[in-house]
Each structure stands twice: as C-alpha cells, then as structure tokens.
C-alpha cells in the first residue's frame, strides 16, 4: 500500500491510500471541530440533517435509489469524540469497476461526487435548512440521545467517562443534549453549519485501487472549489480531568451489574504510550490478562472482564458484568491486579506475548480499509507521524521495567457501578 497526503487548500487535506487488495473503494470525509457544550448538539444534528437530502438529491429516497444504482454503494455517517474534538464522519463505499458486469461506469467518481454533494451542497430553502427535515431530525435526535440506555454496557462506560470528565469537553455526550434541541431551528442550524464549514478541519480519505485521476476528481469538484481556505479550529491538546477518587452507583432495571473502573495513566510523554499499550494488554487486554484470568477464570465472577486503553485521553477503563452482590469481591480483585502490576508480579514472557498481540494487530492495519483510514487519521490528529514499521519497532523495545514504571503511575480515578 502506498500512502500520500497533500494539503489541497489550507486546512483541507487529501489522503490517498493506494492499494489493489480490495474489491471496494472507500471514501471518507472527516470534519473536525472543538468539542464544546454550546455546539455539541447542533453539530450532531447537522450530520443528521445533511443525510436527509442535498441540493441535487433532495430526499432520502432519491439518495437511496442513487446508492442502489451504484451497485449498493453504502453511505454512512457518524459522530465521534477524538480527544477533545467532535468529529463528523461521512463514508461512502462502493465496488471497484473491475467487478462490474458492465464496465466503465466510473463508480468511484460518482461516489465521490455524491458524498461531497451531501456534505457541502445541502438542500437550502430561504437561506435556511429545510424546516421539515430539521424538525424531524430534532425528534429523532431526542430519541437517539434517550436511546443511550438501551445498551447497558456501553451506557455504563459512557457514564463513567462523564463522571470523570465532569465540566470538561471530553465529558460531553457525542450526540449532545435533549434540552438544547428546543432552541435549534432551521435558521440557526444553517448558520452554525456555515460557520462550521468555514472553520473545521477537513480530511478527505480515498482508499482503493485508484490512480492520479482521483486527485483531479476532488480538486476540480465544484463543492471543493467553493470551500474557503481556513486556519482550522480544533484542539490539539486535551484537558486533564480534575476529579479524584470519584465513585458513582446508579440504579436501573438490570439483571446484571455493570462495573466500570476508570484509571488515570499519567503518562509523561507521547512515547510512553507504547509502554501503556503493553501494560493494558497484560492488565485486561486479552484472554491471558490478569483481569480475565482472575475475575473470570479463577473466581468465575464474570463472563466479560476486560480493559481498554483510550490513548488520546491516557485513560484505561476496566469493565465487567457481574452478579450485583459480587460488587465488593470483583472490585477488590481488580484492585489486587493493579497492585500486582505495580509490584512487577508478571513475567518477561507476558511482556513478550503482549508485544506479539499488539504487533499482529498493527500488521493487519492495511488489511482493512476503514482501519487504515482510522490509523492515518489518528496520526494526523496526534501529529505523531510514525510509519507502521516504526510503530512495530517501538513496541518491540518496551521492557518489563517500562511496564512497571507505567503501573506505578496508574491511579484509580472513578468507580462506576450500574445496578438494580
């Protein structure tokens, strides 16, 4: 695979991932902006309104029909938090012309035109978004935000994060807040859209078996041409939490208790984060990990017991689903594992095994188009330009001492428990 990056206009970058491994081309457009209480709901709503119809394809039905004509091209959009930024993500995936029954349809070109049209050429009536769409999507957004409780495990994790980052950008819910919706209308939402389009950081990714033509398709596109140069407004640093020793127990009608323990890693610099990845794998990142082995296999308290590292925020979250009466038992076991790590009660072999697992996942980054896009976007955002080979090399260098050092810095920040 060959990766190139080019600034096509100030603040707007085109990333091309040229590879002949896939039957599909994947085009992604990411709009990155600061995560702020004032705009979080509007930004999320913009993405929902845009997908309802563009100036060219005015209804969902027309968009869907067009996608079906393009051999089932799939269009998708989502909202993510990347550090202290809110990222509006849009994707279109379509099959490469080589696999068509009739050739020369240039599906890629049409796909690019469609996605750019949906994002940058919205349906406007009287200098505002279409009222009907905005009102409907406000209702849908309300349902979506309220729908957080439907996935209990995810909900418990989100709640723990919110408690840890109360009053901080990262503590905001990525889809925003129901109470904001009543003040949003088709006029002020369109104003927010115009502002966003002037200020946000724009990254366009194209992955697939493509040639030089793709750059022309994008730079010559009318919607790209009309975008202004910008000094993109987004957060490159992220705010630390100020909560210490938080504890929150909440009730819901659940059968099983969901325990989440949020940890502060306190890394000293970017480079130390490779050590943390090894630490996390040994702590709870695999079936061999201390948490899986002790909470599940030895004590049989849980089916799910694991930990995840949030690199941008330098936090680890330990999760398990347990019998409610086993709360203290499970929590103590988790604390014991953290202590064990501090005391260096793990082997060189475990360090080596963790490296193997991480290296294997790094090596497969370019086996999946969306994973490679996420990887290169991560590099773009962290300003940390490491090639896959350098990344592997750096993981390979981590020692047991490095991991113990991480363990000594780790502190429990917040314990969250969802119970009945």
């Amino acid at each position, binding site marked *: 695979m060959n990766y190139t990056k080019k600034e096509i206009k100030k603040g707007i970058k085109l990333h091309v991932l040229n590879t002949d491994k896939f039957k599909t081309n994947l085009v992604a457009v990411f709009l990155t902006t600061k995560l702020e209480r004032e705009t979080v709901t509007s930004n999320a709503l913009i993405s929902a309104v845009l997908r309802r119809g563009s100036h060219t394809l005015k209804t969902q039905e027309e968009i869907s029909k067009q996608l079906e004509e393009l051999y089932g091209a799939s269009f998708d959009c989502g909202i993510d938090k990347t550090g202290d930024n809110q990222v509006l993500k849009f994707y279109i995936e379509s099959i490469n012309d080589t696999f068509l029954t009739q050739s020369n349809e240039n599906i890629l070109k049409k796909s690019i035109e469609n996605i750019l049209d949906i994002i940058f050429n919205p349906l406007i009536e009287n200098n505002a978004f279409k009222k009907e769409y905005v009102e*409907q999507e406000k*209702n849908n957004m309300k349902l979506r935000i309220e729908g957080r409780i439907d996935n209990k495990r995810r909900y418990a994790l989100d709640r723990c994060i919110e408690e840890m980052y109360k009053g901080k950008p990262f503590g905001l819910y990525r889809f925003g807040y129901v109470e904001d919706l009543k003040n949003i209308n088709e006029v002020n939402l369109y104003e927010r859209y115009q502002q966003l389009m002037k200020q946000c950081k724009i990254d366009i990714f194209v992955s697939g078996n493509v040639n030089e033509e793709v750059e022309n398709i994008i730079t010559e596109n009318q919607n790209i041409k009309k975008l202004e140069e910008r000094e993109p407004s987004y957060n490159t640093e992220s705010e630390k939490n100020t909560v210490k020793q938080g504890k929150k127990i909440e009730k819901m009608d*659940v059968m099983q208790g969901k325990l989440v323990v949020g940890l502060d890693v306190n890394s000293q610099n970017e480079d130390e984060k490779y050590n943390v990845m090894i630490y996390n794998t040994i702590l709870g990142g695999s079936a061999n990990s201390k948490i899986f082995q002790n909470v599940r296999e030895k004590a049989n308290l849980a089916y799910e017991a694991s930990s995840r590292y949030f690199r941008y925020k330098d936090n680890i979250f330990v999760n398990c689903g347990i019998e409610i009466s086993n709360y203290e038992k499970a929590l103590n076991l988790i604390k014991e594992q953290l202590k064990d790590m501090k005391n260096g009660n793990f082997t060189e072999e475990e360090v080596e095994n963790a490296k193997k*697992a991480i290296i*294997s996942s790094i090596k*497969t980054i370019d086996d999946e188009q969306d994973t490679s896009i996420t990887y290169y976007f991560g590099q773009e955002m962290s300003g940390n330009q490491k090639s896959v080979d350098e990344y592997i090399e750096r993981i390979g260098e981590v020692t047991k001492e490095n991991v113990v050092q991480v363990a000594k810095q780790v502190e429990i920040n917040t314990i969250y428990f969802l119970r009945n």
Partner: protein
Amino acid sequence: MQVIENSKVKETLYLEKLENGLTVMIIPKKGMKKKYMIWGTNYGSNENVFIVPGENEKTEVPNGVAHFLEHKLFEQENGTNSLDTLTALGVDANAFTTNDMTAYLFGCTDNFYPAMDELMDYVQNPYFTDENVEKEKGIIGQEIMMYDDSPDWKVYLNAMQILYHNHPVKIDVVGTIDSISKIDKEILYKCYHTFYNLSNMAIVVCGDFEPENILEEIKKRLKNSKANGKIQTFYPEEPDTIVKEKIEQKMEVSQPMYTIGIKVKPTDNPEEMVKRDMAIQILLELLVGKSSPLYKKLYDEGVISGGIGGSYEFSENYAHVLISGQSNDPEQVYSRIKQEINRQKQEGISENDFNRIKKKLYGEYVKDYDDVENIANMFLTNYFMGINSFDYLNQIDTINVEYLKQLLNDVFKEEKMVISIVRN
C-alpha cells in the same frame, strides 16, 4: 483437490474431502497479511435428540450443551487452557455456537503453524472433569444474564417463542441457568463423540497461502479417525402454524423495540435455498428498504426514526423472515407492513425497482470477498447447508420478477406473521 473459480469476484476455492470424512476448503488471498483458520462441526444448539453411533436408543440432552461444550473444549489435561496458549502466540483466537453449528477459529499474522498445532490439538482432545464442568456454570451463568439485559436479543428470542411450537430453534443457544445445571462431563463426552467426528466437520483457511501446502499441513495434524457415517438427529414435529400472533415483554428501553416474524416452510434443496434467500432479500428491500415508499412514509410521519432491518434465516428444517427496528408505535408498523405486502401483491413489482435492487445485492456479494475472516465464515456456514458460497454470484441472474411474485405470495402470508415487542 477440486478447483472452483469464480470469474465475477476473481477468487478460487480449493476443496478436498479427505478419506476420514473431513472437508477442507482453502481460499487464497494474495497480499493479505492476516491469515485465518476456522474449524467447524455441523452441530449446534438445535441438535438435542440423536442416536449415539453404535447405540440403538435415542439420547436426549439438556438445552445449551453445544455451547457448553464449546467453552470446555479449550481445557487441557495438563491444566492449561488453549485460549491462553493461543493468545500467548499473539494470535486472536475465539469460538462460537449457533443454532446449527459450532466453530473454533483464530486469525493472525505470525505464528500460523504453531497456532494451527494448538487449534487442531484441542479440538481433537477433549478433557472434561467434574470440577472443570462445575466451574464453567458460573461463567456461563453470567453470560446468560448479560443476554438477559440485552433488549434486542430478548425481542428476537420472544419472536421465536411464538413462531415455533416445538422446534429447538426457539430455544436460546446458551440454554438457561436451570438447563445448564443438569450438564455433566458424561453428557459432554457423549455429544463430543457423536458430533465431533471428522465426517461431520469442515475446515476453512483463508489468507496468502499455497493451497497444496496448507492441505498437507492439516493432514499431518489429524488423528486417525474413521468416518462414522450420517448421524441420526431428531426434531419434534413442527406444525406449519404460528403459536400466537403477539408477545410483549417489559424492559427498560428508551423506545419500544419490535421484531416481526414470518414463518416459512423450509426447503432442503440447496439450490432453492440460495434462490429463495436472494429473492427474499430483494423483496425485503422493496417492502421496507431505505428507498421503499413505505419507509419514506413511516419516516416522514415520525413512526420510525431509523432503519428497518430485514433478514431471512434458514436451515434444512426451519425458515423464517425477520423484520425489526424501534418505533413508538410498533403495532402501527406491523399493520402498515401487512398493508404494503397486500398492495405489492395486487399492484405487482416494477421491473425498474427490481433491477436496481438486484444491482445493490450484487455489489453486496462482491463486498463479502474483502475480508479473510468473513470469507472463511461464509464458506463454512454455507457448506453445512450444502451451499457453495459462489452459488449466490452465479445464480443471481436467474432471479426474475415472476419468481419474486411467486415468493411474495408463498412466503409473505398474513396468517404466518407474528410480532414481538419489548417496551417500558
């Protein structure tokens, strides 16, 4: 080895049926760094009544044995656990059980052959003790409770309760706390020796490989085994009718969830299975897909706020269509879908719409061939039903509007429809 090429997706399947009965399928993927192997047995939670080879009497086992067996197979006599051993190799190992099959798998970039050693060793060498069986009951108990908190799983399972009178497809794959309490090591060994015979199993490997080499490597690691012929399994008599039309459960959800089910008479003809599967997918798109008139109306009226999912699940002895989503008024969605089915039956299907959706379906089948794991799982699942996955690409052009009309009448029958709802 049998070599089967497909010119549409430009992929090749190498297939070999060994003397001991094991089927090996290899799909080379040049340039992929990930290598993937899956070993499945054609045995899932549905196979609860059977004749142990060499015996005359039927054996009946508690619900959830296939899944329990999947958990326990990792346990080794020397006290190690194969999942740990595989994880230590840096490979990503797992296993899963469905109504119809059980499979053990791993994906990796390095250490493929050491991982293959371990996988092939543990699947061929069960080690169950009273103690290790007992301990697993706690873990699976928490797995059952995790599903109990999942409204989308409950709404599905409840739909199965009212679609089927007796067929075991209505039973949760993992069983219940009560049913798994009855499982002991004798039962596990009995099921293992019956269903883990090589003639009931298949291996699929996908990645950047030379097929001949892989086949030899697999053969080297197989224990001596004799094909035990067809296993006799029994399923209770299942009437064509539904049990009742509606079921509701209370759970804490933001908005009601629904699953609409349609009971379908199964076919055991693989060619017909493939054709039906494709035609039903096209019909579901025409009825409730994003470009359908009904979807637009329901969305504009605010009855739904997101997609309506449609799927067709089937084996040789059961088949049903499922339509699911979230809505403030699931009863309204249900009656509008019924009306739409009737409208389409009367007004017919437009050739234009049909061709457009067929293009979409074709594109989706092509997309299935990008990921090694997806490819291998697809070939394995289809193989156990007598289907070669390429058949979908090869047969798509045999579907026409006439056939769709026929299926619309035969499958989408009002008296075969049920609705399951989960709401506050």
